[in-house]
């Protein structure tokens, strides 16, 4: 069973109008259980749109999407996935643990079960002593860790992340990447991860999906052969740079396509 299945999905904004934008055209992607897949590409390549289609926050114009062999709308209703954004987006008026409890509250869990789970999640992200503080009393990196704890609170099998570390400084960012791998390893969570950063994509992923704009589509998929166990030494390994180069070259291809983007689109339409 695959965690995510995208079959011929398209998303066209303002269809038929002069401002028509082909955000995604005929995208096919399968993500296996426990896999970590990154979506990378220049701005406007539709990587965030694809993530929002999987999350059922947007309706596709064509094609179909499945999460855990369910329709995406059913998966959203069942809270089969957790989500994290670039802004941690914690609620200022809730304590850290109440923030983590939010999805559980919406699911109708009772109070004891909720606070037990929140405590468990705080252990997981290694911030147990911050339970009763408010989010604005925490650093950006800590806030983002709480956001991940919140996304995973209901133990969803799938985690969707939209540039979650984009607003963090480089040092915090690398630390968070390590933490994310550890957490996902411990919880066996499948991740679809949108990023701008090539080293980030390579360090985290089993596969890197390279996308290109106008119209948004997948141009290549690169298998990262760094093995399952990754740590700080991985960043200095030869294989790391080889994979980075591979992704970079695939991305260069997308840049060169800019001029001929319309020609390609013409072909694909037929």
């Amino acid at each position, binding site marked *: 069973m695959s965690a995510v299945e995208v079959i011929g999905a398209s998303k066209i904004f303002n269809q038929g109008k002069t401002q028509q934008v082909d955000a995604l055209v005929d995208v096919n992607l399968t993500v296996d259980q426990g896999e970590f897949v990154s979506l990378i590409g220049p701005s406007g390549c539709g990587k965030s749109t694809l993530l929002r289609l999987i*999350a059922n*926050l947007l309706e596709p114009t064509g094609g179909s999407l499945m999460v855990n062999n369910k329709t995406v709308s059913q998966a*959203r*209703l069942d*809270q089969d*996935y957790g*989500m994290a*954004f670039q*802004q941690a*987006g914690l*609620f*200022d*008026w809730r*304590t850290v643990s109440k923030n983590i409890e*939010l*999805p559980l*509250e*919406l699911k109708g869990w009772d109070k004891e079960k909720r606070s037990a789970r929140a405590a468990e999640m705080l252990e997981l992200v290694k911030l147990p002593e911050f339970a009763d503080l*408010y989010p*604005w009393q925490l650093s950006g990196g800590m806030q983002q860790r709480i956001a991940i704890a919140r996304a995973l609170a209901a133990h969803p099998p799938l985690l969707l992340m939209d540039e979650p570390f984009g607003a963090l400084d480089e040092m915090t960012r690398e630390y968070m990447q390590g933490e994310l791998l550890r957490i996902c390893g411990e919880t066996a969570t499948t991740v679809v991860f949108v990023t701008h950063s090539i080293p980030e994509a390579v360090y985290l992923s089993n596969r890197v999906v390279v996308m290109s704009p106008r119209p948004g589509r997948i141009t290549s998929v690169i298998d990262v052969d760094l093995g399952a166990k990754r740590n700080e030494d991985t960043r200095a390994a030869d294989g790391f740079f080889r994979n980075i180069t591979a992704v970079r070259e695939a991305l260069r291809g997308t840049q060169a396509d800019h001029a001929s983007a319309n020609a390609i689109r013409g072909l694909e339409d037929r």
Partner: protein
Amino acid sequence: MKFARRAAYRTAMFVVSIFSVVAIWELYKIIGPQDGGKFFGVSVLPRANNTAMPHISTMLSRYSRPEVRGSDKKIWVVVLSGAWFSLRLSLVGFFLGTTIGVGLAILMARFKIVQRGLLPYLVMSQTVPLIALAPLVVSWGGKLEIGSFVWPRWLSASILGTFLAFFPIAVGTLRGLSSAPAAAVELMESYAASWKQTLFKLRFPAAVPFMVPAFKLGASGAVVGVVVAEISTGLKGGIGRLIIEYAREATGDPAKVFTAVFGAAALGLIMAGFVAISDVFFMRNRPKESSI
């Protein structure tokens, strides 16, 4: 500790500001022209004499003297009971205004079409002069028959308070409800949260910093509405009635009207104070810079 120091600082600033107003008033009485300053026949400076501008001390000491000569009722008792009467009417007006204002804001936030259709009328409603509206409300109220319910006269004054209170509350709450960040709304959507859940767990908490100043305006608006309604409908017992009664005696007893005016001002402050206390309560755990 920090909180106590800030409270002390604020109280000190309040006292200083009151004393500076007193000082400016008394200073003008010394240097201002006794019969007003005229410039090419147009009077531009107010008269500084004791009839137009009584000494602050005269006004304050007036509180301890009887309301009318020969009566044993001290004027502070009369002003206080008038203020209490008007305060109750204002509270009724404020609560009705809050209910209507917040209700309208929820409707407008829920249905964009309601917002587009209703908002212009709300703005327009505030251009109707209160004085013109007051007698109408009284006569409509008099004609109203709902079972055995009899429309009391004071309710008309409260309704006019409501009329001034609901508008800032509706507009401020609507802005607040729409202020929730798009990412937070998307997050709630990703949890498949219902509109009601989003309203109570996200939109209302996010709206508090916008609602507090709106409620302050609404609270003082309710007082203004009630006082004006008392004056224009001649309702007895409140501070508005005292103001016109005492104003008639301005030549013989100029300090008297000020006792009632201060009473009305204190009412507005008390009402806004209620809201300020609730602000401290609701915002106690928020980042300090987000409170307006």
